[in-house]
């Protein structure tokens, strides 16, 4: 959506509120319900989307008024950003609120309000110029062309820095030009990301490497999706061997409840390569027993619509049977090169 359209959407929002107040009525909003129960699979879009359940925010309700006012302020703040051609991180937005007399208990609250605004307007926050803190990087034989103001047309080689390049607004909006790579390998931890760069595993496997840094930020997912679609790179995901790692992969593949209202973020044909429960046994990896929290998480995942497939249910059952978990770094037990020479060789070749 163009900036002008976004500004119009936001301005309309304010006009609605004021006009309702002038009529002596209490403004209300109607938002899609973001609860996990309201996520359904949309086969046409090939992704999970929010269902038909909606919630109403009523400004005459003392329990709603706070988030109502916060939402209007976030919309106002977003409009200011666009008009000044600036961006803000979610954290910046949280701290900025104080100067306007609007207070949030914590950043989680302001993040939630930003999501509300997305749901209400159907505009992703990136279009308002609001981004998460960068905590994700990319490295590989890809050339991108920037579109961000001041860098328009400039090309960048993603192998430029041996540390990888942070995935920010500039890379997210850049256009893929060309690549020599054949796959895109996303890894959970920074340690594994560095290891794969240092050992030149990216050359050996012709891989573009992405460090997810835990749950992948939306900008990273959007970039991966773009590389998948425009450069035709199959996406593989390598995480820790526990329910949480498995779910990091799942979100890349089928999306998160929190972003189910945003289209074009999921990569349905991406694949989780491990560490799977059977890898733990096969490679005799050092492991720890599953905690109660882990088991509870497995229980939740087993009932999650995104885990309906037989393969996913198998992984869950295996975890429950094995009752153990491990980290990507556990391969070091067999020597620093084992993960590249043996594990990935088997998985990728």
């Amino acid at each position, binding site marked *: 959506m163009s900036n002008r359209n976004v500004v119009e959407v936001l*301005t309309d*929002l304010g006009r609605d509120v*004021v006009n309702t107040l002038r009529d002596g009525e*209490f403004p209300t909003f109607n938002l899609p319900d973001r609860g996990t129960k309201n996520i359904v699979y949309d086969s046409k879009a090939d992704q999970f989307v929010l269902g038909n359940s909606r919630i109403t925010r009523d400004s005459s309700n003392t329990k709603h008024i706070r988030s*109502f*006012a916060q939402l*209007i*302020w976030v919309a*106002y703040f977003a409009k200011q950003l666009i008009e000044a051609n600036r961006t803000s991180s979610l954290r910046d937005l949280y701290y900025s609120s104080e100067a306007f*007399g609007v207070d949030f208990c914590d950043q989680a609250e302001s993040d939630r309000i930003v999501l509300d605004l997305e749901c209400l307007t159907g505009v992703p926050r990136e279009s308002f110029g609001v981004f998460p803190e960068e905590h994700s990087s990319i490295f590989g034989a890809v050339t991108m062309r920037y579109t961000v103001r001041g860098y328009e047309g400039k090309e960048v080689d993603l192998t430029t820095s041996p540390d990888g390049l942070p995935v920010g607004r500039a890379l997210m909006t850049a256009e893929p030009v060309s690549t020599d790579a054949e796959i895109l390998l996303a890894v959970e931890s920074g340690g594994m990301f560095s290891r794969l760069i240092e050992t030149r595993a990216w050359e050996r496997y012709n891989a573009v490497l992405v460090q997810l840094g835990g749950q992948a930020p939306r900008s990273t997912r959007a970039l991966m999706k773009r590389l998948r679609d425009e450069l035709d790179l199959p996406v593989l995901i390598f995480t820790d061997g526990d329910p949480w790692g498995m779910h990091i992969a799942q979100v890349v593949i089928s999306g998160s409840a929190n972003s189910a209202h945003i289209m074009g973020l999921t990569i349905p044909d991406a694949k989780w390569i491990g560490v799977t429960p059977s890898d733990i046994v096969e490679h005799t990896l050092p492991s720890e027993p599953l905690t109660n929290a882990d088991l509870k998480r497995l229980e939740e995942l087993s009932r999650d619509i995104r885990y309906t497939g037989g393969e996913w249910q198998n992984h869950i059952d295996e975890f429950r049977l094995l009752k153990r978990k491990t980290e990507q770094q556990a391969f070091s037990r067999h020597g620093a090169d084992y993960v590249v020479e043996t594990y990935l060789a088997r998985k990728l070749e």
Partner: protein
Amino acid sequence: MAGFGNPTQAVYSTVRELVENSLDACEDAQRLPRIRVDVESSLSDTLTVTVSDNGTGVPHSQIPESFGRVLYGSKYDRRQRRGTFGLGVTMAVLHGQITTDSPVLIHTRDDKSHGVAYKILVDIERNVPVIEEEQVRKRNYEGTTVSIRLRGDLKRAQERVLEYLRLSTVASPHAKIQIVIDDSLDLTVGGLVDTVPVPPIPSKPHPRAADVELLRKLIDRSENKKLRSFLIDSFQQVGDRSASRLLRFVGLHPKAEVRTLNREELSLLGQALRSFDGFGRPDIRSLSPIGADDFLKSIESTFNTSLLRFANRGSCEWEGNAFMLEGVVAYGDEFPSAEIPTIYRFANRVPLLYDASECVLTKTLKRVNWSRYGARGSTPAALFIHFCSTKVPYKAAGKQSIAHLPQIEEEALALYRKLGRALNVFVKKKERSSRETKRIREFSKMFGLMARYGAALAGFEKAPPTSHMVRLLFEGGFDVQ
């Protein structure tokens, strides 16, 4: 000397003894007390206290003994009174005489004269009054004026004296007291109600108070009666049947002549009267409680409060003396915030300001778990507790604290719990309403922000007004800022 131990207390006690006697004299006269207290400090440490009232006046024949003899006048008049005339005031006279070598001046008029003035000293060795001067002098109306010159510390005592007078009118709201200190202060307190309290009726002693000494006195004053009639006539709560039963139990003949009883028989009789459980409770008409209306009104006029609740207990007795407790729990910013409410103690309508920690009322206060009654460190609550009795069991001669008797403790505990429950209801309600006010204020703020940023978002110059809508939403009289 008890109550005159230091120069500060001496000033306070002198004022107190004189004011108490004045209030009692007005009560006897059934008049609204109009009392004036003058304090003149001639030298830095010497002052004259003059208290003037519109009471009955003192019969002329009794003046020398009343003011000039220690331990005069223990009448067997069982009813609630403030002072024990002849003891307290003589101490004040004595203290004045010792410290300044001056006589007490008395100017009084009773219903039989136009007025008489005395100057009296005490012969300390022989405990007899010495009349220095006696003259007929007209007084405009009935009443008494007493002047005592003493050495004392007015500067330090002043606050206590004012506090004492102010609290005196809390317990006697019908009294109006004017205090004039040199040229520096002229203050009138009290006069909060216009009705004279129902006077307590003097009662006969209760049998539980009987000891050999009392029996002797009663026998001396009675004609030579038969034992059973003597008991019925001399004691309250003793009737034909209970007297007969008691005498059968002791083995004394009901027709025996009382004057013939020997010491042993009297002792036996006394013991039986004290332990026999067939007598009713003492007559409550000999007491003069402040009562709900007057007590609440006086505290309300004297303190800035947002809660006042009254509670009382039925009459009880200690050693045959009727007593009862009444109290008010108050809440207001004037009182200190503490985990235990501040206590104001009164005995027979006299405020007790010293020796609080020794008093049964204070000690019992600490036995109550006040947090259960909504009191926290931040609760500005106070209790006004009035103990009234035909005889106050003071712990010491200073008359500042009540002795620790189990009956009193039990009654105090029950009263505190009653008042505590009232406090709890109030505190809970207050917390609820302050939460509600906070909620509305928060709503109003947020609603305003919504309108303000809504207008800014729409590009309007001004935000639409919202306060009328907030008021609409919370109809019910809350203030919205």
